[in-house]
């Protein structure tokens, strides 16, 4: 989505996260698009300088995610574009994936056509392609040989090699298929575990979060030895929480992040670093938990503290929130927004997370007040300016935000534009209950009447029926009438009455 390249020709299977568009589970792509892309075209454009150093940041990661992260930074940040793309080109050239080398070079040539790296190295590309082709053929040939010999272990390893190869050259669907084929040939539990981890890592890169979830569940179903379990748990929790983050269920994501064992360390660097766990977990928790829960489950959580120590500002923001100091909390988040917008996993969610945190702050802030002046609220929640007088004008963004929150029912309060205060609604509960009871009584009477009438209509045979049915009935009825009843009102006058009514209708 936000990451999708402009050129449709490049939407090949190798472009990472492209499939997010199709498989973004539960997240409404429209709203995300709306918030993310309101300012700049199809890409997120970050103009503020981020707080991190590119080199030390990228050093936290290993494997293919390095390139993906650098490429994202290069295409989104105006400050780090050249530096990041150059690094990306170098990274791609050190691997076997030709298509991403081409993408990186093209992106660089759009921004800085004069750089030496902006020209594609045809020699290298062709050579690599040939090497890759030969390697693919060799591995597939070998696999065929193993299959003929019917040795399970060999077939498994052949598939594994092939999957690894496809993964390295960026053919993710083929890698996924190759790894999945290993399944039938796994003989020991540890084989199954390693296969599942490989599938998960491919799925994460593809952005196929549903498959991540299902495979993590499958991992949980395995019953490995104790030490294996402790080794695998942090990775499983991290993968699970990533997929929950991407499916937009922030509370579940926060829970999974909080449950991640600090022994994760640098062991999962091909996906995310411990710093990421702290940031993602902290933000998800801030957005989805109330103050007590934050205090109890995040700040007093001994194992998660290890992560939080890596990102002290997240810890500060959470403790500010717990102490009801909303302005410092929001200021910290604001200051780090650029960083998070350049994060490969957070980019799509940061806007939603921030809005939720902000809304929650406003709600929390209002709890003790029965009426609070708009000015004092603006002092806390309007960031980035010092001139408070303009901020509480009835058309200012802040008041509009409040109006929106009241109208969608988030805030139970009303605005007094004369005295410039926000009045919390102290509805008379007794009256409300009475009203509700009376309404439900009315509704019941109506509904019961409708149903009773219906039953009686059917019993009396008065359903609406097709015309010919009715005509037949009428003839019977007329015949019956003539025989039994006298007729002292002539039919003519009755007809006249009918005529009149028809004209009235």
């Amino acid at each position, binding site marked *: 989505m936000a990451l999708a390249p402009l050129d449709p020709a490049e939407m090949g299977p190798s472009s990472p996260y492209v499939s997010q568009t199709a498989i973004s589970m539960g997240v409404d792509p429209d709203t995300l698009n709306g918030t993310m892309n309101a300012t700049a075209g199809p890409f997120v454009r970050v103009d503020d300088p981020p707080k991190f150093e590119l080199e030390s940041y990228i050093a936290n990661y290993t494997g293919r995610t390095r390139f993906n992260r650098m490429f994202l930074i290069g295409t989104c940040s105006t400050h780090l574009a050249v530096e990041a793309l150059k690094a990306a080109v170098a990274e791609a050239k050190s691997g076997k994936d030709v298509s991403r080398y081409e993408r990186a070079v093209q992106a660089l040539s759009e921004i800085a056509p004069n750089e030496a790296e902006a020209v594609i190295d045809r020699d290298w590309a062709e050579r690599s392609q040939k090497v890759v082709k030969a390697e693919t053929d060799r591995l597939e040939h070998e696999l065929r040989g193993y299959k003929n010999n019917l040795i399970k272990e060999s077939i498994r390893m052949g598939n594994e090699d092939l999957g690894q190869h496809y993964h390295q050259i960026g053919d993710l669907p083929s890698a996924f298929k190759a790894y999945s084929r290993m399944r039938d040939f796994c003989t020991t539990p540890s084989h199954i575990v390693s296969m599942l981890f490989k599938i998960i890592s491919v799925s994460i890169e593809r952005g196929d979060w549903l498959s991540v979830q299902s495979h993590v569940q499958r991992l949980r179903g395995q019953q490995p030895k104790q030490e294996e379990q402790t080794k695998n748990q942090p990775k499983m929790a991290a993968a699970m929480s990533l997929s929950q983050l991407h499916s937009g269920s922030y509370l579940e994501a926060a829970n999974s992040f909080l449950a991640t064992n600090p022994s994760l360390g640098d062991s999962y660097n091909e996906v995310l670093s411990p710093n990421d766990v702290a940031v993602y977990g902290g933000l998800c928790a801030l957005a989805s938990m109330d103050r007590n829960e934050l205090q109890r489950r995040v700040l007093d959580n001994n194992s998660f503290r290890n992560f939080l120590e890596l990102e002290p500002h997240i810890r500060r923001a959470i403790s500010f929130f717990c102490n009801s100091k909303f302005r410092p909390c929001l200021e910290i988040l604001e200051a780090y927004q650029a960083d998070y917008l350049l994060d490969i996993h957070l980019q799509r969610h940061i806007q939603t997370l921030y809005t939720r945190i902000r809304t929650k702050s406003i709600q929390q802030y209002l709890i003790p007040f029965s009426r609070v002046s708009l000015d004092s609220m603006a002092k806390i929640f309007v960031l980035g300016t010092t001139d408070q007088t303009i901020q509480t004008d009835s058309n200012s963004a802040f008041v509009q935000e409040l109006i929106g929150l009241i109208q969608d029912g988030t805030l139970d309060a009303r605005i007094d534009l004369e005295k410039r205060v926000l009045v919390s609604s102290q509805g008379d509960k007794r009256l409300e209950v009475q009203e509700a009871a009376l309404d439900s009584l009315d509704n019941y009477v109506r509904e019961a009447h409708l149903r009773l009438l219906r039953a009686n*209509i059917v019993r009396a045979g008065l359903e609406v029926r097709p015309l010919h049915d009715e005509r037949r009935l009428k003839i019977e009825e007329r015949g019956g009438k003539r025989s039994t009843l006298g007729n*002292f009102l002539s039919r003519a006058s009755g007809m006249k009455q009918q005529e*009149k009514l028809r004209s009235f209708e």
Partner: protein
Amino acid sequence: MSDFLGRLSSVPSRPHDPDNISAERYDRQLRDLISYLKQPGVASSTSDYSDFFEIVSPSVHSLSFLFLLRFQIQLVQKRTKRDIPQNLHPGGDLWKQVVRFLRSFDPIQIRYAGYEWRQLVEVVASAAQAISKPALAVKVIADALGRLNTSGMFTSVHLTLVKLALLSSSYTHTLPIMDKVLCNFPTDTNHVHHETFLCSEHGSSAAFITDTSGFSTKLTYRDHLQFYLYSAMIYMALKRWDHASHCLSVVISSPTANSVSKIMVEAYKKWVLASLLGYGKLPPTSRMIAPHVTRVYQSLARPYVSLAEAFEKADLQKMSAEVDLGQSIWRDDKNTGLVSQLFEAYDKFMIIKLGRTFSALTIADVLQRAPSYFKDHYDTEEFVASLVMSDTLRATLSHLPGTESTTMLRFCLSTQFHAFREEHIRTRLMRGKSALNTIAKGIVQTDQTLELSDENLHFIARSQKWNGDPEKSGAVGSGEAGVGGDIDEDLMGDGH
């Protein structure tokens, strides 16, 4: 002559009867009287009945009086060779007697002459229409229906009444009849009430208003649909939107067998408009409406549905466009009046909605936040003032000190109207209670009759056969039916 008079006054109404005779004897007496009055010779025994009107009291000897009126009307009709003779016109002497009778008859006696009673009512209706003053008949018929007390039974007279009321725009007289909950239709219930007499005390009117009693013509589905549609139109004319939309939902949710009546479609159109005017939104339709019926509504009432969408989305521009676009449609459906009220209702609901967001704001803000049909500041202020005065909006208007032109609209909290609300809640409770009572009675009664209906008995009998052993299942069946022994006998008879 005196013999005739003697027969006429032989059976007084029960409250006027000195010796308290049994229901059985009273029933026989009344039946005797009827058969005497229906003899072909009786009518011709005298030439003019007008003298009897002064002697026979309509409240004590209602049956006799009714037949006297009947004879007299037939006589005059024969003499003048006209359906509605001169002295039957409102103001004529015969009309006066008819009205006197309809206002004071004894409802018990009349149970024996439902057919004659209904024809008299219809004469009144056509007489009033004959001189183009249907309003004169409305009150009379409404009173007569009220006296008869059909207790929830629908008759064709109800339909006649609302038709007349609509023709004459005299709505309020019909309200006592329309506000009663109707839930029954005359059916063949002979086998249920075979031991009781017409004159005895009945819990329900189903005992004396049946498909053969003559109080109603043979009904078709059109009759009740029309009745509820016309009732709704009357309520709409009185701006009682909740009643109107309830009546209309009766029509649109009425049971169908593979086809939809045009009346139902018209009702759906009106229901859309009435809901918008009354609630400012389209409530969900009843779940009883079959899906194919809903589809028919949706396709035939498309302009109305899209108008309602624009209204609900608070899209004023689209709404005006829809209204302009559909001018001819509204005109053809005779809904122009309702549509033209939409704008005012729209403004009203917008301002009420503002009250949920703001506790105070200036009229200028109102104008800005609720883009309204009124363009002008003063118009808006006037409109808001009228809403406040009519009690639709709980708010106060105040001029800010110094600036005459700025008016502040302050919405009041609900608690500030405490005394008023207590009273309001009391009336609503009372109304709810009586409605609930009627409904509950109707449910019990319908439940009973359905349980004793042929279909149910057949069903029970059949399910017993399936069970195999007739001895054993007999016990189960009687337990299921849960009623007296006579049913058990029936079942056994059926089973063997």
